[in-house]
């Protein structure tokens, strides 16, 4: 997982690739479809378009029925089961256990900002490579005890007028 992340880590090359992918609609659709194939198989990915996996030890929080980006909630069963779907193990419990095993507990102490609901179905890789994921989460709260929710106050979400809904991969 770490190796894969290193290969795909954003840089100027991937930035260029992402620009090209996004420019051509059928290419974007094909790429997104392929991304979904890979990520759904490996992580149960829900194509939220703004990937939290690097900060959750690769346990997808969008599979949480309450869509918690700062889980787990207080309802986890004593046996680790989800309060909403008792047959399912709590994904945030899995995230925590994996983080603990990998020495990544500080990641669990990051505050995750609310997602942009418009990005559902988009390619999270393209968004990541194009530096759109910069403000998804904060530093470990032990190092940054009062982080701001609004990263750059001058940038408001309302400035982006969509031309048409992005080609979506529905999950």
């Amino acid at each position, binding site marked *: 997982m770490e190796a894969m992340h290193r290969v795909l880590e954003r840089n100027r090359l991937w930035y260029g690739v992402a620009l090209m992918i996004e420019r051509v609609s059928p290419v974007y659709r094909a790429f997104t479809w392929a991304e979904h194939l890979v990520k759904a198989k490996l992580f149960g990915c829900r194509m939220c378009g703004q990937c939290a996996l690097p900060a959750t030890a690769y346990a997808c929080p969008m599979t949480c029925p309450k869509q918690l980006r700062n889980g787990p*909630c207080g309802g986890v069963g*004593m046996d680790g089961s989800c309060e909403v779907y008792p047959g399912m193990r709590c994904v945030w419990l899995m995230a925590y256990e994996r983080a603990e095993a990998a020495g990544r507990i500080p990641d669990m102490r990051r505050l995750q900002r609310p997602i942009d609901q418009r990005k559902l179905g988009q390619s999270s890789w393209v968004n990541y490579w194009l530096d759109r994921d910069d403000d998804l989460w904060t530093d470990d709260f*032990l190092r940054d005890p009062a982080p701001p929710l609004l990263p750059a106050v001058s940038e408001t979400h309302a400035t982006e007028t969509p031309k048409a809904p992005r080609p979506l991969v529905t999950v």
Partner: protein
Amino acid sequence: MRGRFAVTAELGPPRGASLAPLRRKAKLLHDWVDAANVTDGQSAVVRMASWAGCLVAMQEGLEPVMQLQCRDRNRIALQADLLGASAAGIPNVLLLTGDHPRFGDQPDAKPVFDMDSIQLVWAARTMRDQHRLLSGREMKQPPSWLIGAVENPFAPPQRFRAERLGKKVAAGAQFVQTQFIFDVPIFAKWMEQVRDLGLDGKCWILAGVGPVKSLRALEHMRREVPGMYVPDSVFARLNGVPSERVPAEGIALCAEVIQQVKEIPGVAGVHVMAFGWEDAIPEILERAGLGKRQVAGKP
């Protein structure tokens, strides 16, 4: 709530449009508690809105805590409700993620969960202290309230629960009410970790307690209420008395838990939850050695 052991309680609004039941409960409790939560769609069933209940509480001289959860509303509505609460003079808000619709009598409803509790606390702090809405827009009249959250020391992973409280405090939580405590040692362990993180100095921690009225109620708590940890010892104790004595035993147990948590350093008060049994609260508090509140300015 400032400088001495605090007591808060919970009021469930009625499942109809009359204010009378809440008014009665508010009158009953206003001498005994510092503030009372008016719950918000608890267990995903329709009850009168929390804000309406809060207004009634204020009319009866009871300081309210408006509960606001993320199940039913998106970020636009949540901010709107926070503004309304402040404008109406509601002094405290308790911000939670909320129970999923599957727990209630309308499981066909759409769960919203546009934000989670930590983001909502964070949003509230941003509105109040940075005077900004989440769109970035600056408010000339920013809201003002005390911001509260909840935490459950018992739900897995227990070793993360103090740090999760830390996240809420970093987001802006100034007081926290915990889930029901039956197992005091586990709660004490959590408090130790909370103190190690220095959170008791930044946040008032109110220990959640409550009386058990019957064995059936206890069974319901264990099975149906998310996040409740009921140890076998409690079952054993309530099983050990004749059925007509169970309510009295439940009250005694609750009073004992209060006395025990009161001794734990860092605990700022208790939050008493007596669903449908608010009448028991004065007795519980008396048995726990917490008399009527003498608050300056209250009638």
